[in-house]
């Protein structure tokens, strides 16, 4: 079975960087409506830094846990902002769960999502329905787990995660923000999707794409 090894992680980062770069402008626009218009910049720059890390070879490790720790630092120090600490903590928590050991198996990808989600939640203290990126992250893991439990392939389970995240992001449009910048707008935030949830769903799409592109996933 394929593994969530350093190569997998590298492909995931590059895929996410490419997708976020494409959505940079749209995410900024979305953030402008209820926030300050920088979200696309932060996300695209952050994942571009991760792509550069794994591509340019400033990272030398092949141990997934160590690579994720480097990624956390890289993301954080390039981005700052709100998403910097959140994603960095997500990466860090995943890194710690993986430790210095061998790579997890491909089928364990829900655990990877769970660790990322847990880090984001730990740092940001947001809950479901607060109209944040968590509303995309939270439903992804159980959706994938349920699918695997039903005997689906990794690729099929990944698609379920993607659907759940996208649905979660869409659902933020009807929520009132209670975390972050948009929380000040109260009712005025209704009707707009949360930019962080939208970008989270893009990151999850990239993860899913990476799984799908792994031959053994089917």
């Amino acid at each position: 079975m394929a593994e969530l090894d350093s190569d997998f992680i590298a492909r995931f980062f590059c895929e996410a960087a490419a997708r976020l770069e494409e959505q940079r402008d749209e995410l900024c626009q979305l953030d402008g409506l209820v926030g300050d218009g920088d979200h696309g910049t932060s996300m695209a720059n952050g994942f571009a830094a991760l792509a550069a890390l794994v591509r340019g070879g400033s990272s030398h490790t092949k141990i997934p846990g160590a690579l994720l720790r480097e990624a956390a630092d890289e993301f954080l120090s390039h981005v700052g902002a709100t998403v910097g600490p959140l994603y960095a903590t997500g990466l860090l928590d995943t890194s710690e769960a993986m430790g210095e050991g061998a790579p997890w198996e491909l089928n364990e990808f829900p655990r990877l999502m769970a660790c990322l989600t847990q880090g984001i939640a730990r740092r940001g203290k947001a809950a479901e329905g607060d109209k944040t990126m968590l509303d995309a992250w939270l439903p992804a893991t159980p959706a994938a787990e349920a699918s695997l439990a039903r005997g689906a392939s990794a690729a099929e389970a990944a698609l379920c995660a993607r659907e759940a995240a996208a649905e979660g992001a869409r659902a933020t449009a009807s929520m009132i923000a209670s975390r972050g910048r948009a929380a000040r707008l109260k009712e005025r935030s209704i009707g707009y999707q949360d930019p962080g949830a939208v970008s989270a769903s893009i990151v999850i799409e990239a993860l899913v794409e990476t799984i799908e592109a792994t031959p053994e996933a089917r």
Partner: protein
Amino acid sequence: VKKFLNSPRDAVSESLEGALRTYPHFIQATGHSKRAVQASATPPKGKVGLVIGGGSGHDPAFLGYVGRGLADAAAVGNVFASPPPDRIVNCTRAACQGAGVLYIYGNYTGDTMNFDMAAERANAEGIDVRTILTTDDAAFSAAEDRESRRGTAGSVFVFKIAGAACDRLYGLDDCERLARKANDATFTMGIGLEAASLPETSRPTFHIAPGDMEVGVGIHGEPGAAREEITTADLAVDRICDRLFSEMDLVSGDRVAMLVNSLGATPMMELFIIARRLHERIEARNAVAWRNFIGYYCTSLDMVGASVTLMKLDDELLELLDHPCAGFGLQLPAYPCDQ
């Protein structure tokens, strides 16, 4: 909106480089990190350090408030984005003279997370860090909920008071107390007429209809508390005063410091028109605007709009407000003029 830019993604770095080359007597890069900036003047040993910072796009904040009698160092983030912890830690080391360090910055989720992470690391190095969040924006949330408010242009007063306290070599507890006291005494409300444009997009972040104004905007070009019909300058000021006066409980005999701040593209002629009405309103309460600041102090890139900050003064705050300082954004000689 047209801008003087090279590659938009280099805007912050190039701007910072320009500032460092322009004001070498005020600021210098901290070590190799150009995004961490410290005062050129060497602080005396035993002085409490003051670190400020936040996203870019608020010029002259925050770099302009680094210097004698102000902050020792400032961490610089991307446009409207908090600086990451490593830069803040660099600033902290540069600012630390063995007597502890104050962090003062606006109350935003991003800044709080990054500065808190920095504080943890600084603590691990044995530096006593005290954090004061500025929460002067009175446009949102009830007075009881003060802690959830944003930090906006009023932060400048808090920097000034804290910087003076540090410059006088007060102890860490006292510096912290005075910074909190300054923040507690400070209230801001802003009105936006047109949204700001970020360098990367050169396009307003949101749309305000021709006949509308956005009441309660902050300093990130973000929407405010309410969209209202645009009105005369006097009525706009009245709208602001009604809120600020009740928030700060302005009473007869009070002295306040007043800051009329352009959010970027509103010219000074209009700031003075706003100031005129402010003086009228303050005087009608038998209070007086004892110290006045008008101009560009904490902007939101090129937003059309202005904010009004009032800080209620007592003798202690006034003395610290008048303490000399030398940042390129705020210079007060020992005695600014005949008074």
